[in-house]
């Protein structure tokens, strides 16, 4: 570890802190329904969409109608994407002449993009036509993120209002999140990406004659436009197989910053928007403090573990000065790779700029652990916010138990109904992750997909289901995931992680919205103080993390010890 490495890490967090407030306020303005700076451009488009869809933007929905709208929209998106992938061979804009995507892979991919996971069991440059990338994948990059924002808004309004039966209008939230937040940001970021060297063309490839006279076919495409929304929507699905490690997705240290900045800023700003909505900005800052504490500590652990190098290779005569370089790019080095790995898993982004599967045991444990904590740090756009609020509900409940008072959060009493829904939501992750991993670890054909024997093999399977259920999308790439077993089970894990989590959250929103907001009294446990920040960190660690510790001990922790003792498998 070096001072410069830490400076590189700090700069990113300072940049994000600087935009949290203006971006958070802007989003509060957009989702309050008022006019904003982009209304003159996108206002007519917005009204046209509502007219065609038969949506009355002034009419709000109860939590159940809101949920049904979200499910109907997700289903329509899944069906469209599945159809595009299955019909790819006959559709235009397919210069490489790729065939149609097989059924199990198309199911997995469609679920993956609709749930904002963007797990990729395919290699982009050898599977997907430009049409599939654009009309299929890019669209879901926008709208799955916008759906996440919409659900977070429903929960936010529930806390902001008193004794009402509605939580907002899903169609309006979805449309406004797409048109006024994601689209303008994506345009700016995409053009900045092109300036940094990301290609943006409809040519599929160019053939170069190398200096030694060989032919090198270089895959191209509309990369910048997809990369921009991939990060802003915390999607993470790359244009190319190796994601943001590919020099065309991430050519320089500066583009690396913009990648990380784009994925982190919207989710972090949404926490501020929450504070603004509920009339307590300090609450937003308290959530941001929890997030940053986790991210900086985690980046430190990964950086430390990776910078030490791999002693097995050091013994062969490799200089450990540059750290563990297997699966990493020279232009990023250890600090910027550690930072990317931490943020992409604290969020539900899942893009990578180095191969997590080639990280050291502890270096690879951290990204996996961050996803298992529930991706609330700050999580995917929207999904992270509502995940954080669920943990806050659990934290005030624990605090209430300690002092023997009815728990309340932001003036809303937390009753047994909300607690049941919250517990149901947080149990989905361990159920899907540990359940499917355990089954896969004993099925011979599932074990056959493992790339590295020994404890790392278990880590590969554990990481896959962690990533799927957490809707992250990053991977320990040694696992051959493109098999009927993994395509199907990972698809189910993604659906559970998205919808079995979101539905109880929306039910909480409905129940909270109906409650009267009571003013704070002397007996109220304040939730915007350092004490609460500490309590919330503890709850996330204990509840989110402890249940995975046995599995982590068998995988990455043993791997790290084996590496230190020079054992190979």
């Amino acid at each position, binding site marked *: 570890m070096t001072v410069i490495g830490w400076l590189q890490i700090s700069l990113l967090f300072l940049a994000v802190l600087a935009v949290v407030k203006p971006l958070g306020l802007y989003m509060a303005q957009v989702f309050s329904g008022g006019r904003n700076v982009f209304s003159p451009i996108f206002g007519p488009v917005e009204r046209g969409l509502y007219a065609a869809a038969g949506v009355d933007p002034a009419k709000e929905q109860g939590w159940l109608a809101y949920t049904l709208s979200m499910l109907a929209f997700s289903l*329509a998106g899944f069906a469209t994407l599945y159809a595009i992938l299955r019909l790819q061979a006959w559709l235009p804009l397919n210069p490489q002449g790729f065939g149609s995507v097989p059924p199990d892979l198309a199911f997995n991919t469609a679920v993956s993009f609709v749930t904002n996971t963007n797990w990729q069991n395919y290699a982009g440059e050898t599977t997907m036509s430009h049409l599939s990338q654009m009309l299929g994948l890019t669209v879901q990059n926008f709208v799955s993120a916008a759906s996440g924002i919409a659900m977070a808004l429903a929960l936010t309004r529930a806390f902001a209002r008193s004794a009402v039966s509605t939580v907002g209008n899903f169609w309006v939230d979805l449309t406004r999140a797409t048109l006024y937040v994601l689209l303008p940001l994506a345009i700016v970021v995409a053009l900045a990406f092109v300036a940094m060297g990301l290609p943006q063309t409809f040519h599929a490839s160019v053939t170069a004659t190398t200096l030694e006279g060989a032919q090198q076919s270089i895959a191209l495409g509309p990369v910048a436009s997809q990369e921009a*929304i991939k990060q802003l929507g915390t999607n993470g699905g790359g244009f190319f197989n190796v994601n943001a*490690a590919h020099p065309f997705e991430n050519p320089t240290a500066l583009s690396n*910053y913009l990648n990380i900045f784009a994925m982190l800023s919207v989710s972090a700003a949404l926490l501020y928007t929450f504070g603004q909505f509920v009339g307590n900005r300090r609450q937003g800052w308290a959530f941001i403090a929890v997030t940053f504490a986790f991210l900086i500590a985690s980046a430190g652990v990964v950086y430390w573990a990776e910078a030490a190098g791999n002693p097995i*290779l050091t013994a062969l005569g490799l200089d450990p000065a540059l750290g563990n370089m297997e699966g990493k*790019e020279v232009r990023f080095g250890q600090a910027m790779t550690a930072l990317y790995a931490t943020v992409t898993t604290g969020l539900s982004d899942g893009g990578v700029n180095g191969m997590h599967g080639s990280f050291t045991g502890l270096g690879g444990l951290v990204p996996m652990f961050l996803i298992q904590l529930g991706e609330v740090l700050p999580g995917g756009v929207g999904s992270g916010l509502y995940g954080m609020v669920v943990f806050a509900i659990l934290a005030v409940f624990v605090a209430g138990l300690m002092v023997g008072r009815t728990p309340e959060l932001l003036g809303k009493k937390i009753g047994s109904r909300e607690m049941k829904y919250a517990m149901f939501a947080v149990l989905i992750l361990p159920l899907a992750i540990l359940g499917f991993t355990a089954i896969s670890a004993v099925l011979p054909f599932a074990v056959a997909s493992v790339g590295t024997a020994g404890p790392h093999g278990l880590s590969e399977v554990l990481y896959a289901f962690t990533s799927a259920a957490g809707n992250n999308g990053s991977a320990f790439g040694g696992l051959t995931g493109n098999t009927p077993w993994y395509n199907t089970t990972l698809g189910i894990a993604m659906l559970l992680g998205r919808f079995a989590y979101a539905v109880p959250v929306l039910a909480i929103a409905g129940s909270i919205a109906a409650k009267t907001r009571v003013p704070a009294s002397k007996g109220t446990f304040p939730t915007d103080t350092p004490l609460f920040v500490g309590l919330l960190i503890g709850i996330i660690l204990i509840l989110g993390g402890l249940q995975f510790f046995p599995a982590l001990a068998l995988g990455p922790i043993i791997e790290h010890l084996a590496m230190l003792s020079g054992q190979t498998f």
Partner: protein
Amino acid sequence: MFNQLRPALVLTLGLTAITGLAYPLVITGTAQALMPAEANGSLIRKDGVVIGSALIGQSFASEKYFWPRPSATGPEPYNASASSGSNLGTTSFKLKDRVAADIDRLRAAGLAGEIPADAGTASGSGLDPHISPEFARDQIARVAKARGLSEADVRGIVERATQGRLFGVIGEPRVNVLELNLALDGSRTSASSRR
């Protein structure tokens, strides 16, 4: 449920047209008009022929050229149509055997002492255009001998091709292998003409 279907279908179609069609087309049009070199892959041409991209690494095996890092792409290294890392875990015997073989190859080519970490490991993309300044330094003697140049001349070319950190902080020191080898070919200070 039926009253959910109309907005679901209409908004799916409408937002697809906006984000899947209009958005990439506008970005492509703007990028091609304002930044055609970058938008088309930062290609390097020599005598009108594309010889590679400034951002994408390529294979070099000749003694006259600086070598890049090992690449895990298949079927051949630096396959820019199928990016890939090795994805091998740190305790994999396959990784250990592969690195040992690469270290033997580099030792045979005259590298002494500890081998720079990037020289013995495959990058994440398999297309890393860069090597560390240390790995470049260790190859100077070999390239100078193969070209019949003085080590000082080659060192000068390497130093000019070395990129530092932006503002002294951002990024890592690195050498672009293709640009370095191009500079070598362009230097035309071959031994015979200088003596």
